[in-house]
Every structure is written in C-alpha cells, then in structure tokens.
C-alpha cells in the first residue's frame, strides 16, 4: 500500500464484463464504509483490446487515482502483460489464464517485488456452474473479496440491488461469488485494511461527472437537450434519456453537431433553457454558431468533454487540451465565458452557473470537462446547494413600454434588455449581420464601432463579477502549483499525502474554475510571494500558462505537463516533488 490508499484493478478485454464487475466492486466497497474513487481505461472498440476498472479506497477524502495497484484481477492475457508492472511490491495478481506465460522481465519483476500470483480457472468453474464465461469476473471478484477478508453479507446485498431487475442472475452471480470466495487461500497472506470505516460513506452515492452534468442541468431548469454522440460526452445524452419520462425534458439526438447547437440556440432564443454537449471534434463543427450567439446576443451553453486530439485522437482517453479551442473558437471578436470543471461538485455547480452567466450577459458559455471527470466514479454524500434560477428578462408592465430599439440599445454595461418572442408588441430582428439597436442591418462605420464596443463591454462587466481562482494552502509555500481541470484531484491528494507524512516540503495549489475572462490578481500576487510556481496541465503546450503569460507577462518557474492520454495520477505529483 502506498499513498494512504488501497487499490484494486480489474482488467481484461472489452466485452468480458470488466465494467459491470467494476461497478459491483465499487458499490460493495462503498457499502463497507470506505471512501473511493473509480477510474476506467478502455479502448475505442467493442470487443478485444484491454480494459480496466480501478478502485482506490481509503478512510478519508480521496479524489484521484493512483498509478499503482495492490490487487490486480485479470481475465485477459494482453491486459495482464499491460498492467502487471503497475502492481505495488507485495501486490497480488489474481488471474484466470490457463498456462499464462510471463516474459523474463515479468518473472523478474514478480520475484523482486514479491508479487503473489494466484491462478483460478474461473472460466472452467463458470462453465461447471452452468453459467456462461461471463460470470468468470464474479468468481474472481469472490476470490478478491476473500483476499481482503471482507464480510460476505455486503456482497449478497449489493448483488441483489444491482441485479434487482434480473432475478435469475442474482442466484447465478451469488453462486459464482461463493465459488470464488471458497477457493483455498492457504499460503496467501490476507490483506488487512488499515482504514477505519465510516457510516457516512455507507450511504453515499457513486456517480460520474456526466451524470452530474445531466443532474445539474435538470436542476437549473434545462428543458431541452440536443446532442450528437461523442465520447466522453455521450453518456450525458443517455442520462437525460433515462430521466426524461420524469423530467419531461425534450431529448433529441440530432443529425450532427451543427444541428444540435443550432437547435439549442433556436430554443434558447425562444426562452427555454437548452443544453448541448460534445467533445472537441464535435465542437469544431459548432464554432460558427458560437460566433452567431456572440453577435445576436443569444445565450448559449455548450459542454466540451475533452479527449486527446488532434483529429479522432485517443477517443476514450483524457486530456485538457481544448482550452485554446474554447477561448478562440468562432470568427470575429465577441464576449464569451469559459469555465472548467474539476470534480463532481464543480461539474454540478458550474453547469448551473453556466446558464446564469449566459442569460445574464447574453453570451455563449463554454464549460470544459474531460474524460477523467466525465466518466470517473466519484463518491459523494450530497450535492452542493443549487443556485437559484434567474432569467434576467423584461417582465410585467415593463414589456408594454418596450420599443424595438431597446433590444440592442447602447447601454453602459453593454447588457441591453432582453425579452422573448410572444411577450411584447415590440418585435425586433436578432441579426447575424451587424445591426442597429433594433437589429436592422447597418454597415456604417460609426454604428459598427459602437456596437462592437457595446458587446465587448459585457466582457468587462463579466470580469468584475467572476469569482477569483481558488487557493488551497498558503501563498508562501515552497511550491505553488497552478492548474485547472482534473489535475486538481491529483494535486490535492498529493498535498494531503505530504501533510499526513509530515513532509518538510510545503505545497499549495491555485486552481482556476473560471478561466476566461482571466482573473490575474492572484497570480500576480503569487509571483511576488511564492518561492516557486509550477504550472500543471494535462496538455502539451501549457494553454492556461500561455494565457497567463499573454495577459500578465508572468513566466512560470517550471512546467509539469502530461499529454499521453492518461490523467494525472497522484504519483505524478509526488514523484515530481521527490525529484526536486
């Protein structure tokens, strides 16, 4: 065990039920009363390749994954070769691969690290139990449960819950579990879990970032969801569709991303709240509409679930490489807001905030997530408080006093009155062509200049209102990390880790949820007080860093960048600190 956590990794090839046994494991461990974090790796195909489901658990807050695991359960040869060396020393490999041959270096690794290898012919066992090979995963899970000496009742309860809709599986799965659990473990030392259980986690939820986008949008009064499937955002569409009978939300899988965002801006123009989500490649197709939103001052919200590009890139892996895209997408100059989620709470809250900002300032708001946030399993006991839905529309008698030219009236803060079709006799044209105060086309220089200034004024007004970046720890720490997105989880876990280990190194972290327009006071402050400031980003060029440089001229002391499709693991931060 390292890093104050225990780590179970279940691997095999796609189609072997890795996901379902992963979910079962997560649920059962939660029910024991531990705090956990779940992480999936899988290829962009339906059968084959290698896939894994990792659960890190502890007695206290835990936000990220560890690269190394303590128990590796494997149903596949390729996956075994792939993940074996990520076992901690004294780790345990449980596999079901008859005649599994290890390479020479693997044999060496196993010996040097005192890895315990347990073979159980789960496929044969599954066959004998009268089930298909698909229950082999549950058999291995049973054996793992015994390795940890976990109580058996919890599994009974979990299996009954998970398969409530399929009673015939319950019996089979419980038999499979028992078969694995009864395996003779003599000669293997059981793992003693050193953490205390906590009632609080027993009743907590296990939930993905994408579910939180769907729930956040539902709570914020989103009434239409338009999307075209693209990993890692596809499951937002599924969640909305799963809930739609109860929510009444109009859920439409559009013919492409261009359509999805046009339908959304059409619905937003009429006055409902509509959401779209996609990934970078799909967002590329949406950019003309982002520009249209800027020009017509029609609120618009889009979630960009990032994955590594360019092009199709690594479809099922993670990156935070589309910040530039979000900030610069769309032709011409117009105000916008770019925000980035970093964990479950921020996904939920920022989804709500996105609509508030979009409607208040009548601008496009782009919310970045990434595959790690979208699909990881977070463990929380409650959702953050909802922000109140406010509409910022002209109401009541005021509607009668409106004239058409109020719609794009030159006002000091740039935010002219907005009202909805049907609500007032004062009709107007929302025009993608440059226009006058009532929306009518106008190509005069004076008007063009004034209108541009009016629109851009909203960016200044927005800047005043946006929250500052959040500083975790002290400004005067030895090392201050600066970052955004899912890197936060690994950094905060590393900080906890160092504190627990009573390390002499003091570190802190400045995190940006609200990235554009960029708040710079804090970073300027840091540049004077901190000894060493390190930029951490899950991309190649340090996109937030470049934005900061561009705006302030400040240069970071060091960069910690990762761009291999994997999220920041807690070791990435700890090893970096060790090397200093």
């Amino acid at each position: 065990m390292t890093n104050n956590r225990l780590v179970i990794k279940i691997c095999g090839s796609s189609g072997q039920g890795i996901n379902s046994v992963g979910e079962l494991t997560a649920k059962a461990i939660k029910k024991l009363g531990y705090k956990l974090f779940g992480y999936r790796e899988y290829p962009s195909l339906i059968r084959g390749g290698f896939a894994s489901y990792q659960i890190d658990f502890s007695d206290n807050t835990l936000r990220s994954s560890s690269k190394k695991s303590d128990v590796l359960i494997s149903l596949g040869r390729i996956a075994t070769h792939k993940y074996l060396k990520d076992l901690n020393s004294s780790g345990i490999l449980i596999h079901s691969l008859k005649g599994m041959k290890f390479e020479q270096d693997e044999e060496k690794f196993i010996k040097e690290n005192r890895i315990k290898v347990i073979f159980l012919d789960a496929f044969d066992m599954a066959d004998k139990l009268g089930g298909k090979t698909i229950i082999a995963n549950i058999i291995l899970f049973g054996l793992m449960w015994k390795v940890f000496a976990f109580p058996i009742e919890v599994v009974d309860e979990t299996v009954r819950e998970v398969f409530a809709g399929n009673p015939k599986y319950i019996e089979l799965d419980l038999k499979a579990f028992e078969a694995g659990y009864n395996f003779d473990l003599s000669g293997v030392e059981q793992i003693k879990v050193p953490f205390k259980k906590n009632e609080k986690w027993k009743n907590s939820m296990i939930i993905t970032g994408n579910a939180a986008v769907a729930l956040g949008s539902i709570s914020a009064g989103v009434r239409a969801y338009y999307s075209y499937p693209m990993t890692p955002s596809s499951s937002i569409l599924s969640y909305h569709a799963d809930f739609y009978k109860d929510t009444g939300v109009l859920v439409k899988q559009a013919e492409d991303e261009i359509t999805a965002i046009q339908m959304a801006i059409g619905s937003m123009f009429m006055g409902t709240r509509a959401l779209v989500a996609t990934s970078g490649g799909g967002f590329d197709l949406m950019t003309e509409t982002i520009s249209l939103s800027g020009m017509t001052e029609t609120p618009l919200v889009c979630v960009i679930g990032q994955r590594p590009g360019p092009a199709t890139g690594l479809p099922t892996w993670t990156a935070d490489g589309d910040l530039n895209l979000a900030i610069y997408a769309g032709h011409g100059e117009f105000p916008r807001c770019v925000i980035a989620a970093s964990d479950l709470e921020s996904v939920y809250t920022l989804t709500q905030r996105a609509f508030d900002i979009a409607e208040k300032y009548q601008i496009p708001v782009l919310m970045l997530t990434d595959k790690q946030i979208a699909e990881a399993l977070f463990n929380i006991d409650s959702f953050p408080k909802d922000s109140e839905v406010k509409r910022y529309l002209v109401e009541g008698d005021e509607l009668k006093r409106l004239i058409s030219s109020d719609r794009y009236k030159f006002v000091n803060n740039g935010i002219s009155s907005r009202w909805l079709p049907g609500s007032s006799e004062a009709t107007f044209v929302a025009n993608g062509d440059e226009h006058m105060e009532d929306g009518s086309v106008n190509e005069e220089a004076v008007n063009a200049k004034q209108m541009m200034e009016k629109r851009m004024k909203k960016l200044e007004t927005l800047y005043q209102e946006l929250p500052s970046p959040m500083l975790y720890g002290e400004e005067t720490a030895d090392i201050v990390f600066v970052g955004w997105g899912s890197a936060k989880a690994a950094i905060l876990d590393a900080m906890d880790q160092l504190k627990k280990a009573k390390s002499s190194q003091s570190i802190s972290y400045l995190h940006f949820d609200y990235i554009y327009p960029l708040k710079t006071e804090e970073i300027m402050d840091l540049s004077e007080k901190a000894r060493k400031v390190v930029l951490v980003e899950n991309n190649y060029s340090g996109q937030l860093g470049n934005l900061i440089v561009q705006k302030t001229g400040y240069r970071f002391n060091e960069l910690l960048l990762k761009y291999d499709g994997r999220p920041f693991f807690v070791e990435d931060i700890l090893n970096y600190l060790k090397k200093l």
Partner: protein
Amino acid sequence: MNCSKCIQMFDYYSDNIFTWCTNCGNYGIFSAVKRALVAEEIDPKDALLCFDIGCNGNGSDKISGYRFHGLHGRVLPFAAGASLANRKIKVIAFGGDGGTLSEGINHLVHSVRSNYDFTFILHNNENYGLTTGQASLTTRKGKPMNAAPDGVVVEPMNVMEFILGLKPSFAARAFSGDVKHMTEIIRAGIKHRGFSFIEILQNCTTYNAETPHEWYQERVYDISKLKGYNKADLESAKEVSKDLEENIATGVLYEDEDSVDFYSRLANRKGTQTELVDEVKNYEIGNFLSRFN
C-alpha cells in the same frame, strides 16, 4: 367584420427600404407571406420568421414580427429548435436554393423526416444571388455562371422529386409571380401540422435570364384545377412534379392530413399543457438519486 383587433397588412410593415433588384421575385414572396400571416390572423408578436443568409435573408429587417437572421444553410435546425420550445409562436423559415441544397442539405433531409411543426419556404431562383450568380444545385446544365464560364457541367436537381422521395407530410410548389396563389399555399402550409415544405419558383432578374417571370407564367398550372387529382397520393405527386420544362405543376402537390408532428410523437410530452419556455425554474433532483446509491 369587426376589426378592432384584427391583424392588418400594416402591422407587418417595416420602415426599412428594400435592397432587392427591381422586379426581384422576393417582392412577390414577401407580399404573399404578409398576406398569409394576416389572413391567418397571426399577430406579429406571435410570429417568428427565421431567415437564412442570401438575398432572401436580406428581407429579415424589411418585415415585422420577431425575426432571427442566422447563418448560411442553418435556418432549418434553428427554426426546429425554436418551434419545439414554444408551439404558441408560428414559425416560418426562409432559405435559398444555395444555402438549403448545398450547405445545409442534411438539415433539409432531417427536417422532412423529423416532421418538425413549422413552414419552410424555399426561394428557388436557380442560383446563388447574394454572392453574385454562382451555380446552385438547381442551375440549368450548360448555363454559363460566375465561376463556371463554360457552363455548368452538372445536371440540375428536381427539388420536389427529392423531397417527395423523403416522404414529407406536406409538399407544395408556387411561382413568385402569382401572389394570390402563393398566399393560399403559404396559408395551407401554416395550417398543416408538421413540416410544410414550399418550393417557390422564383424569377431572378439579374442572374437568371433563362427563366424570367414570363417563362414561368406561360408554363405553370394549378394542380387543384386538375380533375381528379388526389393530393393524398404520394405517387401522383411524384408523377406531376417531374415536369419542370413544359407544364409545371404548382399548388399543394402532397399532404398527409393525418400527419403527426415530431413534438406530438414524444412520449414524455404527451398531455403536457405547458411549453418548454414556460417550464424554466429550479427542479428537485432528489428523485433521480436512488440509482446512484
């Protein structure tokens, strides 16, 4: 008629001066649109007119009502999203043959198939007017155009045949020189529940000398005058829509009177009295959380 609250042509006027060529077919189309809106007693405040980019779209500020002048080729999905959000507002969308059949043809296919409840008026002037006379998918083969000095080498497309192949719920054709007939057709389109596709054969005085006003006038006939024509029969519509040279059929060529529009097919909206625009407020999510426990 007691007309204290009646909608009049005047209500749809705008102070802005038209910027179309003299004798452009768009004048007739706009006139018919206003007449149809007035005849259907639609208050400008309850109308949303959605415009594509092109000469047609340059009319967006020459008429009243709520209007949205969006992007080239994208008027259909915009109008779809708008009409779904508030069904109390009458939505009419306008686009040219360039934007609709090139940049946005995927939207046309899916709008027909999805049967969104709004009216679409295709201004078919057989060229890209606003960008000064390039060929579109309906330009005649062999005709020299901007960017095709030796003549267009592609056979033109018969739009109506294409639409009818998609099994629309409403397909009509009209001619920009006959305001009275266009008005009737647009009224029928507005009344139809579902996606009302109306192709208007539009003369273009500047870039289309081959088929001017008179050319159409001599060739068009009104399908409703054709004895025994059954507009509920898709195959008949396909048959009469073929001829674009000698006898050109206009009128409502096809209508499915039992058409059920997209929104009305949604299981989770059945029986709901409110519109999506009326439903924006904070919602409790507690009910959805049990599956995550």
